């Protein structure tokens, strides 16, 4: 428990310039993830979860207005790294990523095997043969037969392409793989079998995963820790058992009640209202406008409070907990 987390994120902020002003897409996010741990980042669209993924990989768009915070990999602060050093030592070496809809971004005229092997050739400088052998191994791991190495992307089904991009993230044996909505475009059975593959990979390789999704049900297939984002901030961070069993933040509670469940008679309840505009978020709690338990204190930006050992909540209702 006392050992250094694999990745520690402290007060991460990423603001974009836009035609109408500054979009505060990520506004002070802190969390950490250990080795061989699966963290799920949940949130509605526009809450900043994809921005978080990009910030962690330092794949920033051109219109960044402000990027700050600390990103510690094995205790080593990487924010000061030059782009070249970050690319050489962190990106795709320690942390790799499966981007949203990546399966549709495979190059149609290059064989799948070659594309998946590319990180090895680029980041490790391996020979084509070495890379091919390693790629075949990883294909086995994600559940694709090695025959598919020679195929073109259009010859693969959606599920197979998704496995291929997962293989691409895994070939360099990173410690952490970030996945942005990896299964949301897939069918139920394909989803389940990819989640099975992730569980197996986690067991066999000890890889850590950050799974970014809005699909709470599917995320529970792998989640050990859950981070819930709202309007660019982390509102709750807890063990999956606690989060799914007894959510603490009012938003978490409403969100869990809005999930349709197969074996439940009650109709899921939607959350009224809309998330605030990140161009000009409210000064107090960003969820206050939609919150059924709001009170006068909510006009001030809530601090993050610790409940027990393993849970933090950004809400005044939990002010009895210790400050973080």
């Amino acid at each position, binding site marked *: 428990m006392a050992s250094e987390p694999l990745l520690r994120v402290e007060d991460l902020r990423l603001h974009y310039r836009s035609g109408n002003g500054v979009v505060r897409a990520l506004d002070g996010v802190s969390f950490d993830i250990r080795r061989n741990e699966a963290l799920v980042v949940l949130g*509605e669209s526009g809450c900043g979860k994809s921005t978080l993924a990009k910030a962690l990989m330092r794949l920033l768009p051109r219109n960044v207005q402000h990027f700050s915070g600390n990103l510690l990999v094995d205790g080593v602060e990487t924010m000061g790294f030059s782009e070249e050093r970050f690319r050489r030592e962190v990106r795709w070496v320690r942390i790799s990523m499966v981007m949203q809809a990546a399966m549709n971004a495979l190059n149609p005229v290059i064989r799948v095997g070659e594309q998946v092997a590319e990180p090895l050739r680029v980041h490790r400088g391996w020979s084509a043969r070495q890379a091919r052998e390693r790629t075949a191994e990883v294909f086995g791991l994600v559940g694709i037969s090695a025959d598919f190495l020679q195929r073109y992307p259009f010859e693969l089904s959606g599920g197979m392409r998704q496995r291929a991009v997962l293989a691409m993230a895994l070939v360099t044996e990173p410690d952490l793989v970030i996945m942005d909505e990896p299964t949301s475009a897939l069918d*139920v059975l394909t989803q*389940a079998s990819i989640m099975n593959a992730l569980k197996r990979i986690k067991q066999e390789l000890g890889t850590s995963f950050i799974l970014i999704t809005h699909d*709470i049900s599917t995320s529970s297939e792998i989640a050990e820790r859950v981070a819930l984002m709202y309007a660019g901030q982390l509102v709750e961070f807890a063990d999956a058992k606690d989060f799914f069993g007894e959510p603490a933040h009012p938003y978490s509670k409403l969100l869990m009640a809005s*999930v349709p*469940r*197969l074996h439940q008679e009650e109709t899921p309840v939607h959350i009224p209202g809309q998330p605030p505009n990140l161009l000009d978020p409210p000064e107090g709690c960003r969820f206050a406008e939609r919150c059924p338990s709001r009170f006068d204190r909510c006009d001030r930006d809530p601090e993050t409070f610790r409940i027990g050992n393993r849970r933090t909540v950004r809400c005044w209702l939990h002010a009895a907990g210790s400050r973080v």
Partner: protein
Amino acid sequence: MSAPARDIRRSAAGPVLSARDLHTWFELRQWGFLRVGSVRAVDGVNFELQAGEAVAFVGESGCGKSSLARTLLGLHQPTRGEVIFEGRSLGTLDARERKTYLARVGFVQQDPYGALPPFMDVRRILHEPLIVHGVRNRAEREKRAREALEEVRLSPPDDFLSKFPHMLSGGQQQRVVIARALILRPAMIIADEPVSMLDASVRVEILQLLRSIQTNHGLTLAFITHDLSTVRHFAERIFVMYAGRIVEQAPVNELLNHPQHPYTQALLGAISDPDPDNALQMREVPPGEPPSLLKPPAGCRFHPRCNRMIPGTCDQEDPPEFEPRNGHHTACWLYR
């Protein structure tokens, strides 16, 4: 509901819509002229929908559910079999009658942004079907457009009438699509994955809206979806489709609690509820992927993936429909 009551013409007896031995095949050609076969998107589908009933067609992508919806709408000509609406086969309608049919059946598309013309404002979008169907009086059209917006809870209508689709959120766009489907006062609505492009938090809201409109007006609702976890709340009967066919049909609770077909069982087994224990175990998933509709396997189409396959039967003979439980039909040899 504030919307005025509507006069829904119901046929006294018999189903509103039925499909008999319906086949929709798409011819596949090479170099533009060589026939290389047919994609059997809908391949022998039979069902009957009663007036005022909400049903869901559930299946994975490529099972033919969208082709079925489009065939029901008359957008695809069936290769064989027929669609019967209020006692008349679609194939026998003349041009004028087809137009009337399209006014009686509303369509809610999957992608709201793609379904709304970007260069029309909401007012124009809602007036358009009325103009096409001969409502000449502008004031009357405007009144109905406002009513429709109220009905999908885009109120006050004045805030929305002059907006263009890109100015609306995904949920609002889908409401406009629903308003457009309702504006001709149809007897039936076909909704093709009405919420799959929307944010999770908006989905329930839109589904509830559709359901309440359906019950308020006694509409028949055919709801096409891949998401079994929501159907309980929005449909009374489920049809499960696999590879162009209906493999199982039953009332919602019956089907969810006692799935009979191995495919349905696999599908239900693969769906997670948010439960932290999920992470501790592997899910059972049938091997392989759905077959090519160009050359579907002989016999039962699920047999290559089925763990209860009966050799000599399932891989050779097409299973007919059996009724293992009261009102619960399935095309599977296990129940012969």
